[in-house]
C-alpha cells in the first residue's frame, strides 16, 4: 500500500488555485523531496493530506485510507507550533496524550532530536533550531511509518541545516517513508531518493534527482577547435555538439569519455581536456518552476 497517493487534488481560494489537479505518489521507504518556490502550494497540499483543510476537489489516500485517522503518519507543517508556557517536555507530554502513546515515547523522541538536556526549559525560550527539532520530535511520537516534514530547515543556520539533513537521512535509513518539502533543491538533493517539483500548484516534474538534472555533458578542449567540432558532429550528430567557453560541449553519456578522447586523438587532434560537467541543478529547478524563485 503506497504511503501517499493523490488524484486530481485541488484547492481553490477564490480565483486562485493554490493546488491544481495534483497527482502525487510517494512510495514506501523512500525519502521524497517535495520542491517548489514559496507560494507554490506545498503547505496547502500537506495540510490537505492531514485533513486540516478540505480539498476543493480530488482524492487522497494515505496507506489506502482517506485522511483523518493518521495512525501511521507524523507531521510537522509550516513551522513548529507549541504552547509557549510549557517546557519542551511538557509540550511533548501533551502531544503524546493526544496521540494516545505512552509518556515513555517522550524521552525516546527527545533523545532522537538531541533535546534531552534542554527539555525542561520553557518552549518560549528555545532557539528556532530547537523549536524545529521539537517539531520533529512531536512528529515522531507515534513512531510513524510516514513522516511529513514541511520546510524543516526554514530559518536555520548552515550548521542547523546540516544537522536537520543528517537527522532526516537517518530517519529515512531506518526504513521510514519521509516526505520533506523545501524551496531549495540544493538543500535536499543529497538526501532524496526522488523529488517532485511544484510550481503554481501543479507538479511540473517528478523523478530522481539525476532525472531532474538530465544527463551530464562532456566538456572537451582540443585544437584545432573547428576541426574537432566538425569531427565531433560527424561522430555524435550535430545536435549533440555545441561550442562553449573555448571548448566543445558534448551531450553524450559520460561513460563514453575515454572512447571519444581516443577517436579524437586518432583523428590527429590534440586533446587538452576531457571532463564531465553537471548541469546546474538550481538552474534546472529555476527553469522548471517558471523562473519565479531566486534560488541558489
Amino acid at each position, binding site marked *: 500500500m503506497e504511503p501517499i497517493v493523490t488524484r486530481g487534488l485541488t484547492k481553490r481560494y477564490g480565483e486562485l488555485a493554490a493546488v491544481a489537479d495534483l497527482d502525487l505518489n510517494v512510495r514506501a521507504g523512500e525519502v521524497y523531496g517535495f520542491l517548489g518556490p514559496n507560494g507554490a502550494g506545498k503547505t496547502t497540499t500537506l495540510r490537505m493530506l492531514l485533513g*486540516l483543510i478540505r480539498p476543493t476537489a480530488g482524492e487522497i489516500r494515505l496507506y489506502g485510507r482517506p485522511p483523518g485517522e493518521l495512525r501511521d503518519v*507524523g507531521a*510537522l507543517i509550516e513551522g513548529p507550533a507549541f504552547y509557549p*508556557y510549557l517546557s519542551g517536555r511538557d509540550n511533548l507530554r*501533551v502531544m503524546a496524550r*493526544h496521540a494516545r502513546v505512552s509518556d515513555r515515547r517522550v524521552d525516546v523522541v527527545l533523545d532522537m532530536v538531541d533535546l534531552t538536556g534542554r527539555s525542561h526549559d520553557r518552549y518560549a525560550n528555545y532557539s528556532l533550531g530547537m523549536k524545529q527539532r521539537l517539531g520533529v520530535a*512531536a512528529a515522531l*511520537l507515534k513512531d510513524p511509518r510516514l513522516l511529513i516534514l514541511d520546510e524543516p530547515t526554514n530559518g536555520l543556520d548552515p550548521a542547523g541545516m546540516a544537522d536537520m539533513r543528517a537527522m532526516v537521512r537517518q530517519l529515512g535509513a531506518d526504513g521510514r517513508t519521509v516526505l520533506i518539502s523545501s524551496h531549495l533543491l540544493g538543500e535536499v538533493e543529497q538526501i532524496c531518493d526522488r523529488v517532485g517539483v511544484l510550481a503554481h500548484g501543479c507538479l511540473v516534474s517528478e523523478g530522481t534527482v539525476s532525472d531532474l538534472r538530465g544527463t551530464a555533458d562532456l566538456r572537451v578542449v582540443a585544437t584545432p577547435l573547428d576541426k574537432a567540432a566538425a569531427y565531433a558532429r560527424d561522430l555524435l550528430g550535430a545536435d549533440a555538439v555545441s561550442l562553449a567557453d573555448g571548448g566543445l560541449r558534448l551531450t553524450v553519456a559520460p561513460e563514453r569519455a575515454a572512447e571519444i578522447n581516443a577517436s579524437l586523438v586518432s583523428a590527429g587532434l590534440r586533446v587538452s581536456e576531457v571532463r564531465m560537467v553537471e548541469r546546474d541543478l538550481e538552474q534546472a529547478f529555476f527553469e522548471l518552476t517558471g523562473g519565479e524563485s531566486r534560488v541558489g
Partner: protein
Amino acid sequence: MWGDFSAEMIKLLKRPANWLLLAVALLLALLFTYVIPYAGYKGGTGGPTAGRGLADVLPANLVGNSIGGLPVFLGAIMVILGVLSVGGEYGWNTWKTVLAQRPSRLSVYAGKIAVLMVAALTVVLAMFVTGLAASLVIASVENQSLALPSAKDLVVGVGAGWLLAGMWTSFGVLLAVLLRGVALALGLGLVWLLAVQNLLALLAAPLLDWIAQAQKGLPGPNAGSLAAALGSGSDTPGVDALVGGGQAAIVLTAYLLGFLIVGAVELRRRDIL
C-alpha cells in the same frame, strides 16, 4: 477521549494565566461580597444599605453571596477562561500540531469542554469555600449565628453556580471558535457582558417594551434571575428577578448546549489554517 482530556488538563493546570484568573476572581469576590460591605457596616458613611450590611455577610447567605458575581463580573472571568483555552490554539497555531497527532477535532473539543467544565465547577466551589471562611470569621467576631444554609440549598446553589459558570465559559469557547483567535473574541465577549447587557437593561428596556421582553430571553438577564432566585442581593450588578428561577435554569441550559453545539459544528467544518 481520555487522552485528550488529560492533555487538556496539563494545558489548563500549567498555564499561569488560569491561576491568575482564579486568584483575581476570588479576590474580587471577597472584596465586594464581604470586605467592603463589612467595612461599610463597621465604620461607613451610613448610606442607604449600610444597615443591612451585617446580615448580608453571614453564613446563612452563603449561596446567594457565592453565585451573585456570576451574572456579570465572574461571568466575565469565565468568558476569559473559555476564550483563552480555545483561542490559544488558534493564536499559537497549535491546532495543527495537536490534530496531526491523530485525534479527531471533536474528540479534542470534547476533552477541552470536559476540562473547562471541571474548571468551572472548581471556581464555583472555590467561591463557596472562601465565602464560607469569610462569613464564619465575620459571624464569630460579631457573635452572630453560624448557621449554614441547608445541605439541599447548598447543593442546588453549587449546581446553579456551575450552570452559570459553564454557560459563560461556553460563550467564550464559541466566540474563540467563531473568531479563530483570542484578541477579538475576548474584546467582543467582554463588551457584550460588561457594556451591552447593561445598556440594554438600564437604558433600552425602560424605553422600549419589546426590548424589555426580548431581554428575558438573553443569557445575562436569565443568569441574573437564577442568582436572584437563590438569594443573591438585588444590589449586585446584573442580579434581577426578571423571570423565575426554574425558567432561567432551563434557558441557561439551552444556551450552554447551544453554544457548545454551534462551536463543535463550526470547529469541525472550517479549515484549520
